[in-house]
């Protein structure tokens, strides 16, 4: 029966390997550009937010709608696994605080307001 110990060891090993390798095949949940290629500003800054509420393609599309009208927002990439939103913006026109304010804005739906997105953390790149 000593061999039986191999089973939990194998379970632990394959699960550890799964968590250790996920970043190797990271694919965005959404990748949206708000400007045409030839309209891209010459200088672009990037900010990465961790956002509660950003958990699938649908919520990523809603997130994009929340920030698309902020002047200077260039593009947005979402990763549902890490709940992260990486936003490119023109630093001459906007900043991370304005972007945060836009996505945290409550959403009106069928007469009710919902606070869908809340920033958990922020990191500049």
């Amino acid at each position, binding site marked *: *029966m000593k*061999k*039986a*110990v*191999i*089973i*939990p060891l*194998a*379970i632990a090993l*394959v*699960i550890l*390997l*799964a*968590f250790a*390798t*996920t*970043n190797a*095949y*990271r*694919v*965005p*949940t959404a990748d949206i550009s708000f400007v045409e290629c030839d309209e891209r500003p010459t200088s672009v800054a990037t900010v990465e937010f961790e956002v*509660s*509420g*950003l*958990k*699938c*393609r*649908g919520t990523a599309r809603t997130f994009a709608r929340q920030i698309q009208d902020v002047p200077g927002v260039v593009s947005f990439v979402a*990763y*549902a*696994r890490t*709940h992260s939103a990486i936003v490119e913006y023109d630093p001459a026109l906007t900043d991370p605080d304005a972007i945060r304010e836009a996505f945290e804005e409550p959403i009106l739906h069928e007469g009710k307001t919902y606070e869908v997105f809340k920033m958990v953390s922020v990191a500049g790149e």
Partner: protein
Amino acid sequence: MKVLRTLVQVLFLGGVVALLLRGLAGHTPNTCEYYCPFGGLVALYPLARYKAYACALTELNVALLVSVLVLTVVSKKSFCGWVCPLGTVQEWLGRLGGKLFRRRFRLPKGVDRVLMNLRYVVLIAVPVLTFTVWKFDLGFRAYDPFYILFTWGGHETAAFSFYIVIGVLAAALLIPFFWCRYLCPMGAAMDPLSRAGALRIRRNRDTCTDCGECDKACPHAIPVSRVDEVTARNCTNCLDCIEECPVEGALELSWFGK
């Protein structure tokens, strides 16, 4: 060994229950779906075709799918017998049912065999429906007892979803591992690899007394006493047969039956 397996089962079941409670309290946006290996299987088609994940699926689902398949090659359906929380709940209900009714119910062999193929239908139907009728949404959530139970009626479930869970759990009281045996698509995906699984039960003909205790002990109705090595696709390496065998060494865990 029973203690070790129970400990592992409690660990994983406790994990999803903790996730459920934290989710209900609003402390985490992740549900059990975040860690579901079957989600990895559903994710494969859009990943290959559009380089994108459907709905809330991520690379973690794919990584865990690969893990489960590798585990199956090594140790048959150990995922079902040691890890899967829905398997654990059904196992415990099956034991309770055994005590309540003093027997395990089995469907007639022919019916059982036909119904066992239903899980292949589910395995094909779920991805096909996801990309057609459900338009890349995870519509299976409303029918998946794992998701319904461990999100306690999460996103996209409906009132009928709870009837599905109640039905599956009630059936598991009577027929051991009802969902796994007849409907689980993840189990179906593991089947071909499970047959070849390296770690398997071996019966020693010289010491075996043909008492049949192992057959009675096996919750998956595998006729252990009639084979030299268990290659059956449903074997979860739960080791219950070894536990119940009265003859020391008549059954043992082996590499490829050697």
